[in-house]
C-alpha cells in the first residue's frame, strides 16, 4: 500500500511527471526557438534559455491586477501545472506508473484540456480587454482543433474496443493508425498555439492574449504549463501511435523521438507561415480536420 503511494509520488514528481516533464519541456521549448531562429538565419537563444526565463520570472515581484481575486490569479496557473503533470504521470510511459484503469484515456484527455481552460479563465479574470479577446479566440480555437484530436483518439479506442490506454497500446499497427496520426498531427500546432494558429496569444497584435496581465511567478507557472503541454502531447502521441518494443531502453528512445518529431513539425510550420485569422483557422479545422476525423473514425468502425 505505502509502496504504491511512493511509486505514485515518484511518477508524479520525478519521472515522467514534474521534474522530467519540466526538463524535457524546457528542452523542447529551446529546440523550437533555436530551430525557428536557424531557419531565419539567426543564432537563436542559448541552450539554458527557457530555464533562465523561468527562474527570472520566479524572482520578480508580482502585481495582482486590480479587480482580480488573488486566489484566482495564482490558482489558475497552478491548476494548469498540476493537471497537466497528472496527465503525464497517468500515461503508461516507459519507466512510469503502470496503473491502468478503465477510462484512463478519457481522464488524460480532460487533464490535457485543463491548461487551455485555465488560460481562458485567466484572460477573462484579468479584466483586460486584450485578455478577453485572447480568451474568446482560444475558446473558438478549441472547438476547431478538438474535432480531429478527439476523433483520432476515439478511432483508436473504437478499434481497441476500450478506453484503456494499455489496450490501445497493445493494438497491432494498421491503416487506422496512419489516418489517426495524420488527424492528431493536424491538431498539434493549434494545441501548442504555434504559428499559423498562434491566434489566442497573438503577440503584439493583441498584446499578449490571455496572459497580458500576468507577471512574475504566475506567468512563470503558465510558461511551465506550456512546456509540460508540449511534453504531454508528445507522450500521448507515443502512447497512441508508436508501437512498443520488448526493450525498455528502445521504448524510452522512441518516447523522446516522438516528442522531438512533433517539435520539428511545429517549428518548421511556425517558421514558414504567418498567423491566420480566427475564422480561417476555424474553417480549416472544420473542413480538413473534419475530413480527417471522419476518415479515421469510419475506417476504425469498418475494420
Amino acid at each position, binding site marked *: 500500500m505505502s509502496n504504491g503511494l511512493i511509486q505514485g509520488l515518484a511518477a508524479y514528481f520525478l519521472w515522467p511527471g514534474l521534474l522530467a516533464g519540466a526538463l524535457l519541456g524546457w528542452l523542447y521549448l529551446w529546440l523550437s*526557438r533555436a530551430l525557428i*531562429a536557424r531557419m*531565419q*538565419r*539567426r*543564432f*537563436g*537563444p*542559448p541552450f*539554458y*534559455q527557457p*530555464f*533562465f*526565463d*523561468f*527562474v*527570472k520570472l*520566479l*524572482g*520578480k*515581484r*508580482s*502585481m495582482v491586477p486590480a479587480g482580480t481575486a488573488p486566489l484566482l490569479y495564482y490558482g489558475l496557473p497552478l491548476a494548469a501545472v498540476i493537471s497537466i503533470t497528472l496527465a503525464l504521470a497517468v500515461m503508461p510511459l516507459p519507466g512510469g506508473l503502470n496503473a491502468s484503469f478503465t477510462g484512463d484515456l478519457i481522464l488524460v484527455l480532460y487533464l490535457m484540456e485543463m491548461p487551455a481552460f485555465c488560460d481562458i479563465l485567466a484572460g477573462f479574470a484579468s479584466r483586460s480587454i486584450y485578455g478577453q479577446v485572447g480568451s474568446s479566440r482560444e475558446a473558438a480555437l478549441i472547438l476547431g482543433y478538438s474535432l480531429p484530436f478527439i476523433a483520432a483518439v476515439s478511432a483508436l479506442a473504437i478499434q481497441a474496443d476500450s478506453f484503456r490506454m494499455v489496450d490501445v497500446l497493445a493494438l497491432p499497427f494498421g491503416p487506422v493508425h496512419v489516418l489517426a496520426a495524420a488527424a492528431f498531427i493536424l491538431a498539434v500546432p493549434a494545441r501548442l498555439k504555434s504559428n499559423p494558429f498562434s491566434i489566442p496569444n497573438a*503577440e*503584439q497584435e493583441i*498584446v*499578449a492574449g490571455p*496572459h*497580458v*496581465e*500576468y*507577471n*512574475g511567478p504566475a*506567468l512563470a507557472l503558465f510558461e511551465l504549463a506550456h512546456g509540460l503541454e508540449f511534453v504531454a502531447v508528445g507522450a500521448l502521441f507515443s502512447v497512441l501511435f508508436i508501437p512498443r518494443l520488448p526493450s525498455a531502453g528502445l521504448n524510452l528512445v522512441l518516447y523522446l523521438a516522438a516528442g522531438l518529431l512533433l517539435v520539428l513539425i511545429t517549428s518548421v510550420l511556425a517558421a514558414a507561415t504567418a498567423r491566420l485569422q480566427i475564422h480561417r483557422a476555424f474553417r480549416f479545422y472544420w473542413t480538413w480536420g473534419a475530413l480527417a476525423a471522419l476518415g479515421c473514425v469510419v475506417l476504425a468502425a469498418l475494420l
Partner: protein
Amino acid sequence: MGLFSSILKLSRRRSPWVYVLNAGSCNGCDIEIGSLLSPRYDMEQIGALRQGSPKHADILLITGPLTLRSADAVRSIYAQIPEPKAVVAVGSCPATGNVFAGSPTVEDGVLHVVPVDVFVPGCPPRPQAILAGVQEAAHLLAEGKTGRWHKEKHHE
C-alpha cells in the same frame, strides 16, 4: 538560499525581456531597435525578447524626447513593469531633447519623469550600441543596481 540567489542573478542577466516605448520619437530610433530582431543583430542570442505587455518586461526602452502628452503614459508604463526593472534611454532625444530641446511641447529630459539606468547616445544610435545598452542594463539588473540616476523636476 545562496545557490538560488546566484542562479537568480545569472537568470536576470541572461533573460532581459524588453518593452519598447515611443515617447514622441521621429521613428529613427524605433527602426534601429526593430533591426535588433533581424538576423544580423539577433537580440535573442543574449536571451532578450521583445514583449507586447509591460507586465512581462524587465527593461523599458524609451525613444523620443518625451512630449508633454506622452509623459503620463511613460510614468504609467514604467509603473506597470514589475520590480526589478531597468530603463534604457535610446538616442539623444530622451537624454537631452536633441533637436527638440527648448520646445514648449517636450519635457527637458527623461530623467524628470522616470529613473534611467543606461543612456545610449546617437541620432539614431547604431543597433550594436542599443544591444550593448540592453546588455549593460541586464548586468545592472543582476547586480541590483538599477534606478540610481533620478532627479525630481524642480518647479519654480
